[in-house]
């Protein structure tokens, strides 16, 4: 086992020797003699090339940009590579490399060409047309045509994908007049659908391999065949997943690296150590703790970025159970929202990896977000909160206590515990006596989403690229679904906000849509069924021997097709 690992790692080292210097320092000192010989060999070549003139130097640097093995650390361990069946972070990190989507997105979430070189949506919002590139191939050499796209959306994504049935719910039929043209006919306009064509959200699968088979039990689940930048080679369970460059990738000259290796390490301290030593080059989405990311950032060979999560719009909040006292009272909810010092929480609990949240829609979604809502992040938050509690009729008793509550903590790690401790001591100053409760994940989920046996809990949800996909589920009355997790746990809804969401969901005009969502945000923030704390900025750590690592709002869940040696 360790032999194979060593080999993979050492190959990545040797290929980089010609072009980098600072990495050398970061390599472990205890290298085998064979590695040493390889290294000197490669260095010798560089010297020779450098000696033969300027043109050759340019050639050498171009050559240095090509090749290399990127070792990607995925946390937690990858269970399967079937990204058409699961959208969980390890599955997507493991499998997305093999697939392409119709579109890509820039950091402002505007669609960009990918498999589709052009696209258009009719004015009434009922037809979407995509024009595919010519000559796209799957990894097995079979051409990718409109038939594959139709099959993928109708038979795979709409049937077995976790979010597909929602994203493509309005798609009635798909026409494929020729091999390059895909026409989606919708029942109602679906403006959010245009955010759902990435390789992560909607991977295009090969019809000729999938058709007529049991989709939940395919050999291609763990040996993916797609049209993505990297071709699956092998998966040694418990050791590594290996992808090689796909030579017939539709983007010429991409990817520049030869090989992508994915590993998982259970222990977080070890994960940090292997990044430090340069044995792995990339990790994100909780791969290293926030506090370690701060320390790693100071190392010369590592970069830490918070880009590449724009498509997830993850938010941390306090969710009130509005079904019973005291949080059935809007003023009490607002008081708690006023009492929180969001920036302090970001700085001290999340190590600055966050941005103050103002309401239900993440500020990433620039065209729909508004900051013109009631602002709870104010300097005199405590006074405002005390005043609201007085108005709500919760007077302090002789001990200065207004009422007692139990605060449930999100059982996802240390920062949630620290956050809970902060909430406890902060609410103490309002005269709210807090008892903290920390349970395992299953118990906590049952308590919040099935038994509704809680008062206030910390929580987090991905808002994704469009409110219909990620935001409605936390506020719509239809999303109060007992037993379904990560939906509307607060139990709050109102006919007005329901209608605004329904209307905005089928509104093709972007300006009108933004107005509907503005009103929605103002109403929800006023009612405060949730006290929004911050938008998490996950750290991604990568070795700077590679460049252009994070080039899409999907970050490490994107294609990683632009990455190259520095």
């Amino acid at each position, binding site marked *: 086992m360790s032999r194979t690992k060593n080999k993979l790692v050492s190959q990545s080292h040797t290929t980089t020797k010609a072009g980098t210097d600072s990495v050398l320092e970061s390599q472990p000192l205890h290298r085998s003699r064979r590695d040493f010989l390889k290294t000197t060999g490669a260095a010798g070549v560089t010297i020779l090339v450098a000696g033969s003139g300027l043109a050759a130097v340019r050639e050498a640097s171009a050559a240095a940009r090509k090749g290399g093995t990127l070792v990607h650390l995925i946390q937690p361990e990858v269970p399967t590579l079937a990204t058409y069946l699961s959208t969980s972070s390890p599955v997507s990190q493991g499998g997305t490399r093999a697939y392409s989507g119709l579109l890509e997105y820039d950091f402002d979430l505007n669609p960009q060409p990918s498999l589709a070189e052009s696209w258009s949506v009719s004015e009434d919002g009922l037809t979407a047309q995509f024009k595919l590139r010519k000559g796209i191939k799957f990894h097995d050499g079979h051409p990718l045509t409109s038939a594959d796209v139709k099959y993928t959306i109708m038979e795979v994504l709409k049937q077995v994908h976790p979010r597909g049935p929602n994203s493509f719910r309005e798609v009635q039929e798909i026409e494929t007049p020729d091999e390059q043209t895909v026409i989606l006919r919708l029942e109602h306009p679906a403006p959010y659908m245009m955010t759902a064509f990435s390789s992560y959200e909607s991977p295009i699968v090969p019809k000729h391999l999938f058709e007529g088979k049991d989709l939940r039990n395919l050999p291609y689940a763990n040996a993916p065949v797609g049209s993505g930048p990297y071709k699956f080679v092998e998966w040694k369970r418990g050791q590594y997943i290996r992808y090689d460059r796909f030579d017939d990738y539709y983007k010429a000259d991409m990817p520049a690296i030869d090989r992508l290796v994915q590993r998982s390490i259970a222990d977080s301290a070890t994960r940090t150590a292997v990044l430090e030593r340069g044995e792995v080059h990339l990790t994100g989405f909780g791969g290293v*703790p926030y*506090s*370690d990311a701060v*320390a790693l950032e100071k190392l010369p060979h590592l970069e830490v970025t918070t880009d590449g999560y724009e498509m997830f719009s993850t938010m941390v909040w306090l969710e009130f159970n509005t079904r019973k006292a005291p949080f059935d009272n809007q003023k009490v909810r607002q008081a708690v929202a006023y009492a929180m010092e969001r920036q302090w929480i970001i700085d*001290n*609990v999340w190590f600055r990896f966050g941005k103050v949240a103002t309401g239900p829609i993440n500020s990433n979604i620039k065209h729909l977000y508004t900051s013109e809502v009631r602002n709870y992040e104010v300097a005199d938050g405590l006074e405002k909160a005390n005043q609201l509690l007085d108005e709500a009729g919760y007077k302090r008793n002789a001990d200065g206590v207004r009422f007692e509550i139990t605060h449930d*903590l999100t059982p996802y790690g*240390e920062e949630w*515990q*620290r956050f*809970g*401790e*902060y909430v*406890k*001591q902060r609410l*103490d100053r309002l005269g709210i006596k807090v*008892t*903290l*409760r*920390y*349970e*395992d994940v299953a*118990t906590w989920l049952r308590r919040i989403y099935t038994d509704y046996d809680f008062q206030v809990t910390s929580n987090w949800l991905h808002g994704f690229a469009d409110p219909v996909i990620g935001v409605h589920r936390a506020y719509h009355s239809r999303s109060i679904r007992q037993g379904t997790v990560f939906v509307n746990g607060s139990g709050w809804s109102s006919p007005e906000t329901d209608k605004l969401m329904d209307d905005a969901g089928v509104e093709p005009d972007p300006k009108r849509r933004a107005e509907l969502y503005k009103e929605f945000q103002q109403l929800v923030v006023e009612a405060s069924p949730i006290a929004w704390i911050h938008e998490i900025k996950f750290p991604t750590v990568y070795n700077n021997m590679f460049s252009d690592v994070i080039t899409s709002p999907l970050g490490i869940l994107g294609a990683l097709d632009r990455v190259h040696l520095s």
Partner: protein
Amino acid sequence: MKEFWKRFSRNKGAVIGLLVLSLVVILAITAGFIFPGDPFQSVGKPFEPPFGEFLFGTDTLGRDVAAGIVHGARTSLLIGLIATVLAVGVATIIGGFAGYYGGWIDDILMRITEFFQTIPSFIFALVLVAILSAQIENIVFAIAAVTWPPITRLVRGEFMAMRNREFVQACVVLGMNDLLIIFREILPNTLSPIIVTGSLMVATAILIESALAFLGLGDPNVMSWGFMIGAGRTFLRTAWWLCAIPGIAILLTVLAINLVGEGLNDALNPRLRNQ
């Protein structure tokens, strides 16, 4: 009693241990006076180094580490004492009956005891706390549940040895009630090994509680040394005092209890007394 002190003080370590332990007990009792208010309340900037504005510095949320230590002493000692009393109580009853009656009663009670003894104790405690939820009562219960079997076996052995002594047989002949014989005649004679083992058990209980809290299974509403180490572990490289100070507190307390236990052993052990 005078004799007892003489024997106890002959062991220098035990005297030092007793001094340290007394200090910890005093700190625990006066915690509310020295650091009034909630030790979870943040009092200053996060990560203030020790021996500055705050004696032991502040932690990641700006909480006073010294306040945590003093309030944590209360938690640790309380948990140690209550869990030990519980464990020793259960062990005395079960071990006493098993040792006194023997036969099938002994068989049944000992098989039950061995059943508990074969489960790795810390893992068993983890499971119990995970199932019962992390509240201080449940933690005490879990610690007692994993520490009673060894004491039970000790008590049983002592009772078996006493059972056939002449004074016990005399009581039986006199027609004395079994319960009276067990509690009034045998128990006082087996008390010294139980006290010694019990005193060492307090140290074990403190360690188990710290380990549980370290793994995030402490009561989140109660300040304890294990909790402080667990919360500070992430910052070992940047803020050493978050782990080092509560670590030293645990070390000193556990060491002191062990030394006192040794001293008690010297003072109470009848074999030494006869030498």
